[in-house]
């Protein structure tokens, strides 16, 4: 029973990590590529860590809590890096596949100080 649960968790983790990596390689522009690895770190690594926790707790040497610390650090660092990467990309005006919303386009044609407006979104 435990083995089945662990296998499911590990497989889920592996699949999400793979999908994340594939996304990083195959998606077409920077912003969508940013999407991939964030999924891999949360769901992918998260499932693997839960699996590890269950496995080592079942060894009879007490509850394994190291993984919670790893999760905590991951949850703190992953959003920060993703946020900073996207901010940098916006600042550098990295091209996007998405349509620019009409409001913004209007504002950009009217004023020269466009970058802060985009940034404030």
């Amino acid at each position, binding site marked *: 029973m435990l083995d089945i649960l662990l296998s499911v968790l590990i497989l889920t983790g592996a699949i999400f990590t793979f999908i994340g990596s594939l996304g990083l390689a195959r998606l077409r522009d920077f912003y969508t590529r940013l999407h991939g690895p964030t999924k891999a770190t949360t769901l992918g690594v998260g499932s693997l860590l839960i699996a590890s926790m269950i496995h080592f707790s079942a060894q009879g040497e007490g509850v394994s809590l190291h993984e919670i610390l790893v999760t905590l650090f991951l949850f*703190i660092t992953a*959003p*920060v890096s993703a*946020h*900073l990467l996207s*901010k940098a990309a916006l*600042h550098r005006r990295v091209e996007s596949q998405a349509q620019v919303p009409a409001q913004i386009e209007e504002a950009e044609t009217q004023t020269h100080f466009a*970058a802060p407006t985009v940034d404030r979104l």
Partner: protein
Amino acid sequence: MNMNLLFVALIPLMGAALTAWVSRFGRMGSAWTAGGVTLLALLCLLPSAAAPFDGEVIVQRWPWIPGAGLDLAFRLDGLGLLFALMILGIGLLVILYARYYLSEHDCMGRFYAYLLLFMGSMLGIVLAENLILLLIFWEMTSLSSFLLISYWRGREDARTGARMALTVTGLGGLAMLGGFLLLGEIAGSYDLSVILTMGDVIRAHPLYTPMLVLILLGAFTKSAQFPFHFWLPHAMAAPTPVSAYLHSATLVKAGVFLLARLFPVLSGTPEWSWLVGGAGLTTLLIGAWFALFKHDLKGLLAYSTISHLGLITLLFGIGTPLAAVAGVFHIINHATFKASLFMAAGIIDHECGTRDMRRVNGLWRFMPYTGTLAMVAAASMAGVPLFNGFLSKEMFFAETATFFEEHAWGWLLALAVVIAGMLAVAYSLRFIHDVFFNGEPVDLPRTPHEPPFWMKAPVAVLVAICLLVGTLPAYTVAPLLQAASAGVLQAPLPGYDLAIWHGLGLPVLMSILALTGGLLIYAARRPLFALAARLEGRLDARAIYDWALGRTLDFAGAVTRRLDTGSLQRMLLFFMLSALTLGAIGFIGGGSSLTGPRVLLPVDGVSILIALVLVAVAIGTLILHRQRLTALIVMGALGLLIALIFVKFSAPDLALTQLTVEVVTIVLLLLALYFLPQQSPAESSRARRIRDLGVATLAGGGTAALTWAILSRPFDSISGYFLANSVPGGGGANVVNVILVDFRGFDTLGEITVLALAGLGIYAMLRELRLPGPTHDDAGRPWNWDAHPTIMAALARLLLPLALLVSVFIFLRGHNLPGGGFIAGLVTAVALIMQYLTNGVEWTHRRLSHDLHPLIGWGLLIGTLTGLASLIFGYPFLTSTFTHVHWPVVGEFELASAIAFDLGVYLVVVGATLLILVHLGLMHGASHPKQGIQQESR
């Protein structure tokens, strides 16, 4: 064990710090403290003061660097006692005098601290038993007198005079070091007790003459003997209490003291007589001649000091025991009357606002008391009967008269000293007549009046001594003189008589000649002044000094410019090529094979992989080096790989250190890179790059070959000892940490001191530095307005307690498991720097004191105190101890005294790292203030 002599020298040195600190609480506090410290040193001296009168010599000794034969050894004999009493006694009077002399604008704490530093160094010289120890104190007097002379540091003449004094006496000190080393090697010991008994051996040694010349260079430069006399008049830019102290009883007497100290060893040869006697006689005459024509009151006294020092030197140069006694006597007398004269000159300067004797006239009406005191002192200087100067001068004349009778050309010496005596009478007369009589004052800046009572009191004390010694020598100075002379001669004393009247004879005739001749010279002063004005500048030793100094600086500058063109490549090329040449010569000359006999270990895949990646990353950095930011990131990868290698070879401490250092370095480099262009241009031609590549390959290959040669040989290091003794000796299972805080704790203390100094140095350089930073990146885009993104800022705040927890954990377990103060300090520093980077300097400074100096100071203090604590228990410096305690939650915990030392390391590392990084970061804020305003408005 009795150790009062050590304290006599140390109390003023430690008191200097106390005095400087006390001056925070008021001006008078430092004066009282300085006086109290001097009294305390005097009290410390008293228990031993009786012994020299019985002919005993006290020697006290503590091992300091026994391996180098250097002990903290002090001796007290008559000579040392005489000088110590003069230094402390006149020092006390000078402290009292200076309290009234210094004006409101002068910092008293600084003055008294310097004065006490100087006093301690001087006491060290006169009490030292070991020659090297004596030299150390000798150099300390040069340094502290530099500080004293340049006390009014805003004045150009004070700075020049101080520099000149330091250059001349420093050069002499260097020569003296050579002389002392020769003397110590000849005698086989650096202890004076041994050396003083070996006069015959030393005088017969072939190296006697060079040794004598070197030591005399030291003594003559210090005592301002011709041709090194020129620094003394320039040192008159010092405040007058300093002049009164330095040029009466102390600094210049150090040279004479040395002549007296080594008299039994060095004297009695023709070389000694010619060199010492010749220099003394020349100085005596030149000083007396110039003294007469100086219009500056202190200038007159300066040259008369030079002249009197010449007199004393001449007496030692004559070399008979009786002459040495006369020399010692004149040392005492000169100290008393010259100190009082300088103080009187200071009062006159203080009251009139000028020292020019062409303007300061007729002061008798304004200050009769000071006038009377000055007259007595000047009469003593001139050698008028019933004053102390007369007695020693009479002995001096008697010695030259004996010389006259015994040598064919002796009459020349007698004639010269009579002329010098006449000049002395003339300049003393001028001092009194010009200042107190001779018409009315001319255009004085202030209206003079009598100074406060306590300002005159020191002068009065000294003048009273002049009078008492002059009239009742047998009841006052005789025992001290006898003890001091015994200390000089180290032999039975010759018979001498301190009576005022010895009956008619050649000495009395010479005295009468000097007195009448002096009166006549002063009467005929106007044509002589005209002559002196014409001769002015002809014999100017200062011009020669300036010329020599200028040439030396030019030469040094030329050599530096030739070698250092400002090109780093060039310097590195020289360095690499010389290292390669020396290494190649050593290898070829050694004749051993490159590979040693040791059996090689098997290679594993992981190591090879890491090594290959390391090579690839190194080459990558090289290729990318012109894109600075990218190169930096690649270098970061290099650092992480090295950390992995440390883990692989089971050195977790090194890996942790490497990781944290890497983070700090990258942050530091990023902050610095901001001010540089992101792309560096190609600076070398192709040919040059190929040359550099060749040299680099050779150097790298050489280093690799060297490493290979060492690693392939069996090598017994000390590590076995450390591994075996770490737990029983240091109480810690983590050998690396035990080495750092216990086995090599002294090294660590030195290292954190260096780190602290480096931090403070960088702080001093960055503090006022304003560098223009770029406002755009290299593509012309302005920087993002959002310097501190909210998500990162908020989450970094969350990380801070976690990171601090890690750092405490690493610190506490450091003694037994990987970790320790250094790593914990770096982790804390990184955690705090995170806050600076993500939340901004203003935000962080509102929550965290930005004054990091106390942190560094506390760290050093804790480290040093931990070390000193073991001294209290009678163990060597930095011995550690440990015990086991039971903590409620943690359980069994080992508590080592080394953890306190580690705390010191921790604090210094945190303080210095933050100090450097924060101030580098603050430069950014200063370089574009607009962003700062935006942050305020947010």
